[in-house]
């Protein structure tokens, strides 16, 4: 049996979602763009899904564009925002965004755009004064996460949006980690564009959506077809869209019970902090998603912890180094100014509605021994903190 606590990476497809999709993977295979009724009935399913997604977001169905994933949504949103105001050449984002935002911003910098990367404090929070100071009349776009994928820290999107709006800038929110975990009502929000991804809320991979506020001057990113009212070319991923619609419907129901996830998360945090010395919850003091905790285990390295957990059948994630194929520590934790002693040894546990108390207890049972074993191997264990201090490495610079 697998104890799956890596739901910010991806989630299990809900059985009801799968059931909703199956007809569109078998007998209902028509192309919704076809002129015949065999395809037409498929088109109706897409519109139902659009209504389901819109309902979850407090949006109108016409404001939803189906696409392939969060990365496509983020790329499209930035492209659309800049195309809407081509005379403006300034973008504001944060230092802790997903690579699907940061890589695009870096690319645009090489194309002559100016990009401001807002900092975060040690709890992973933004300073709205810094945002206000960065805004100019030339700011085309403000793009921030709704909630951070590594720490779960939630940004004040309503306030950020109000500031962006007052300067005439577009506000895009990467809500990939937030949708289905916190209530969102775009009807009363200053958000212009919002990205979501199906596989983060128990729909399959390869399906996502972009909310585009009604009246927004949208220019398509993918050209070549009339699908999605000409706003996103490409044959519809009908099973995926139907699955996303069903997942959105289920997520809306689940929002009423999300407190249970928070309680299990808190049980995990409390258990680890009280049984294992030199541990800390990264971003613990800030408003956070109910399902996410990021815990730093001082003096040991994340991938080693993950492999030990893996042997116990426990799936988690590390922002460190080796998991991502990079030895650089997580850019999110680095931006928070955490010490190196924590940076490399941080593990993210992310829960879902399927997580059980027994699974949390299993983690709490095995974790102390894992940490003890690795600390016994480490030259940076508790007795040798001076070793780090001599080299000025106890605190990140």
């Amino acid at each position: 049996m697998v104890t799956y606590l890596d739901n910010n990476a991806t989630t299990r497809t809900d059985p009801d979602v799968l059931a909703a999709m199956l007809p569109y993977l078998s007998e209902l295979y028509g192309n919704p763009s076809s002129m015949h009724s065999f395809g037409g009935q498929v088109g109706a399913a897409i519109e139902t899904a659009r209504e389901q997604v819109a309902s979850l977001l407090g949006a109108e169905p016409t404001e939803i564009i189906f696409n392939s994933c969060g990365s496509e949504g983020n790329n499209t949103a930035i492209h659309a925002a800049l195309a809407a105001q081509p005379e403006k050449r300034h973008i504001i984002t944060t230092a802790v965004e997903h690579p699907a935002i940061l890589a695009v911003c870096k690319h645009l910098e090489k194309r002559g755009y100016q990009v401001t990367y807002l900092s975060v404090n040690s709890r992973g929070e933004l300073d709205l004064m810094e945002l206000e100071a960065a805004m100019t009349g030339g700011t085309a776009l403000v793009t921030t996460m709704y909630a951070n994928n590594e720490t779960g820290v939630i940004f004040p999107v309503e306030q950020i949006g109000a500031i962006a709006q007052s300067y005439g800038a577009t506000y895009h929110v990467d809500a990939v980690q937030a949708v289905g975990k916190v209530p969102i009502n775009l009807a009363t929000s200053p958000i212009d564009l919002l990205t979501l991804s199906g596989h983060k809320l128990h729909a399959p991979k390869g399906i996502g959506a972009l909310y585009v506020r009604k009246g927004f001057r949208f220019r398509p990113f993918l050209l070549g077809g009339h699908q999605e009212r000409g706003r996103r070319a490409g044959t519809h991923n009908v099973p995926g869209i139907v699955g996303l619609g069903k997942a959105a419907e289920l997520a809306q129901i689940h929002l009423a019970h999300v407190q249970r996830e928070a309680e299990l998360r808190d049980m995990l945090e409390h258990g680890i902090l009280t049984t294992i010395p030199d541990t800390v919850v990264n971003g613990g003091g800030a408003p956070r998603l109910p399902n996410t905790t990021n815990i730093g285990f001082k003096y040991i390295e994340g991938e080693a912890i993950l492999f030990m957990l893996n042997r116990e059948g426990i799936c988690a994630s590390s922002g460190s180094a080796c998991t991502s194929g990079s030895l650089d520590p997580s850019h999110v934790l680095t931006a928070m100014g955490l010490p190196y002693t924590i940076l490399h040894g941080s593990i993210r546990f992310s829960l879902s509605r399927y997580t059980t108390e027994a699974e949390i207890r299993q983690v709490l049972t095995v974790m102390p021994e894992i940490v003890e074993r690795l600390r016994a191997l480490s030259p940076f264990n508790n007795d040798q903190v001076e070793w780090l201090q001599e080299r000025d490495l106890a605190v990140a610079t």
Partner: protein
Amino acid sequence: MWDYSEKVLELFYNPINQGTIDDPQEPDVAVVYGEVGSIACGDALRLHLKIQQSTDSILDARFQTFGCTSAIASSSALTEIIKGKTLDEALHITNQDIADFLGGLPEAKMHCSVMGQEALEAAIYKYRGIEVEHHEDDDGTLVCTCYGISEKKIRRAIAENRLTTVEQVTNYVKAGGGCGSCLADIEDILLDIQHSAESVKVAPTLTPEKEQSTQALPYPSTPLTNLQKITLIQQVIDTEVRPLLLADGGDVSLHDVEGDRVLVKLQGACGSCPSSTQTLKYAIEAKLKDLVLPSLIVEAI
């Protein structure tokens, strides 16, 4: 998830020779340790050796590792390989020997074996009283994660050895020699260094000789002749401005210079772009003000 060999996983889950070695204070026995890496870079190894002085051989070897699965396995493997060897024999151990002992390592994890080889060298050099040069600035942002090479180390190697190609960088510091995913980054560093060198060269060559020693960028401190000014403007447009515009499908050419008025012709996508005013002001005029004269005004013809 990395694709580790069974041997790597075996030595990770059940490491051998972990820990330190107490100095027995016996005649003919010395205990020494060598260390490499840092917590900043995400992995570090402290290798402890117990040496029989009369035979110059390794009686025991133990390790302490801060690092990933392969770092721990590599350290364990190293201690097994070197026990019983003379110091000279041990100095011939390569990182590939460590990787081979483990049944191979993923390319991106080869730096773990390099770390082992370097720690061994550090310990033996320390025992023999040989100074090992250490650059504190080698800590920092990694470019080549396979071998744990920082940007600062690459920049220093390029500067000290006047390297001009990515292949040379790989040969000198191993960066880029693993998975190869950082080759483009190394090329960017090379271009950045070359570009900086060119920028430094541009202004002084146009400055009177006696002023060269006090020449300070970004623009000359003494008045330029008209010819010098036009030449410098042309160079900045060619090296700083046009690459950016070309990347966006546009271009620009210098038409004339009248006093401080620089007349340019926007071409390609820039010619018909509704943002051409911004292009003139931010992409061209700002550069010329920074790098030639602060009083320049750019206009399109």
